[in-house]
């Protein structure tokens, strides 16, 4: 993507809009603002965007409604800002199609990192899929199904490999536990969260530097998991 990324920021609090906008502009983005779901829908119909940043607690309709609407016609990345205490709201937003979330209050560095990851991810989808991926001391060759850690071959079982692939594929976004279970084990297993716990633990044992303090297979408590390259 050569042009500047266009971002639609939907947030009803003007002061929050102010610093989020300046952070986005520092990242060389073109920012359009909206303070309600109605104006956001209106803006989107005129001005397409490359990224949607949306607050969940909006004055007119719930932010989740906007996510649902946008997902019906676009796959643009969606970053949710949430001040709500309940994890369920975030899970709902993610299940409706949001890609990532930040809990208020958040730092600018954190915010920038999330935006960057989403934009990069969106851009990468347009490119050819990479067959070799490196993170930390690990190198994964997806075509040959080979994994090396510190240049030593690591054996992964079929399910472990599937889980790794699912996480890596969604790099830069949060995968809810339900989505991961469905993708790796199938729809019948969407409530069998213990499978996910055990296999995430296997991946960490085999691929993390310190499995007790994972850097790549990160827990989003109450929500799901995130892969960080």
């Amino acid at each position, binding site marked *: 993507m050569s042009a500047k990324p266009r971002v639609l920021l939907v947030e009803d*609090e003007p*002061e*929050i809009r*102010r*610093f*989020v906008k*300046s*952070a986005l502009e*520092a990242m060389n983005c073109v920012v359009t603002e909206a303070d309600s779901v109605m104006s956001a829908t209106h803006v989107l119909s005129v001005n397409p965007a490359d990224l949607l940043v949306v607050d969940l*607690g909006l004055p007119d309709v719930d932010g989740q409604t906007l996510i649902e609407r946008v997902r019906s016609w676009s796959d643009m990345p969606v970053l949710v800002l949430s*001040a*709500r*205490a*309940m*994890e369920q709201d975030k899970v709902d937003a993610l299940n409706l199609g949001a890609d990532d979330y930040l809990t*208020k*209050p*958040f*730092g*600018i*560095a954190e915010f920038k990192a999330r935006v960057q990851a989403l934009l990069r991810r969106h851009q990468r989808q347009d490119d050819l899929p990479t067959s070799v991926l490196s993170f930390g001391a690990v190198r994964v060759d997806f075509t040959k199904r080979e994994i090396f850690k510190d240049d030593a071959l690591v054996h992964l*079982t*079929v*399910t*472990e490999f599937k889980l790794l692939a699912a996480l890596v594929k969604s790099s830069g976004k949060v995968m809810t536990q339900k989505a991961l279970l469905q993708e790796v084990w199938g729809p019948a297993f969407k409530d*069998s*969260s*213990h*499978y996910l*716990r*055990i296999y*995430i*633990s296997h991946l*960490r*044992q085999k691929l993390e530097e*310190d*499995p*007790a*303090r*994972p850097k790549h297979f*990160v*827990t*989003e*408590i*109450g929500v799901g998991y995130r892969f960080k390259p």
Partner: protein
Amino acid sequence: MSKHASMHLRQWHQSLLTVLLTSTLAFLLMPLAERWELANIVMLFLLFVLMVAIKLGQTSGVVAAICSVFLFDYLFVPPRFSLDVANPEHLVTFAVMLITAVVSAQMAARLKKNAEDAQMREARTHSLYEVARALAGTQSIEDAANITEAFLLAQVGLKAYAIVTDADVVKTQMVGAAQFHVETHLASLAVSSKKTVRSSALNTTGWGCVYIPLLSAEHGHGILVLAAHEDTTEITPEKVAFCEAYASLLAIALERLHFVDVAYAHELSVTSERLRSSILSALSHDLRTPLTVLVGLADSLATHEPPLPPDAVATSVTIQDQARRLSSLVSNLLEMARLNAGNVQLRLDWHDITDVVSASIEHLGDALKAHPLSVQISPHVSLVQIDATLMERVVTNLLENAAKYSPKGAPIMLQVSETPDELQLVVRDEGTGIDPQKLDTMFDMFERGTKESTIQGFGLGLSICKVIVQAHGGHIKAVNRASCGAELWVCLPKGTPPSVPEETV
């Protein structure tokens, strides 16, 4: 005048009337004496006796029969106007006439009584239907008691009181004011034996009482007390039977009221729970919004281009730190409000404790940067059934506490171990330790480790930990280490995690 006396007088009147009527009939039949067969005249007398028995009852019927025999003998049987009998055959006629008259009088009277009884039963059944409908519409126990009182007074002439009990204990909530003495031991006996109990009318007060337990499918709801003053009303077995039938209706009505109460209480708790959670959610939003602005704006000052003077950057970093600390405090307060509201609803699921620990460390971020942290968890640690979000708050609070109460640079150690029944998580610090007197009370609300200390905090963190851990059926404790610093232990019951089949390929 007593009821019995008045009945006697009525009977006496009726007998006199019967004698007069029989005499009138005999007088009217006199002209036929020579022209009709005696047998036909006997028939007319018999017909008369039957009618009297139907109209005036058994006693009058018998009186009419005897009168008829005498008058027939005196006025019609030759020699007339004498009680003498010329033909001994006529003695048979008298005997047959008397027996037939008495038997038919008795049968007629019984028939009449049966009809009356049926009518009365019908009326009572109807009245029970009516009262059942009235009871179905009652809104309170008082209503039901008032209906009971009015109904039983009208139907059987007894004073009635409902005593509503809690469980099976006669803890009387007397509905209506009683003029008589309730014998509590008899009432208790009625409840415990589930049978009607009668007290003697000879007790000192002169009131006879009947205690009928109000039983329904689920449990007893109280007692129906019937009272009658011995001078005015009699408590007959029929009346008791009728009242027992009524008592079962009343028991159903009370049961319905009981369930209405239960349903209402449940609805109330659901509504207030919803209200509470929406208030907390709104509060959380309103408190976090200004904090978000504060953190965000301070952060944008710190990363301003071109950079601000170092002093200004340091100030903005401090503002940001403090705002984050405030935010963590707000989270703890809101969590405490939610937990204190009673019924803690755990969203239990099987979790790897590693997830909880690593999320807590991630969450704390820079707050731990002054302390080297070591984490020891066995790679094969069992899954535990926990509410991960709440347990993350426990671990976060424990680590935050350890950082707060130990000097900069002092290491913190987090270790997870297992016994056959428990998963134990311990956080060790090398701080000043805990005042031995405070070891037990430090988990209670607003207790702080050091009196008047300059270290920020509310003492809220550990109280929340305790509530959460206890809600999970576990326990939390603090011990001072022999060398220096403190250990905080969280022990959680392990349960049996669901199995995951091993993969071979």
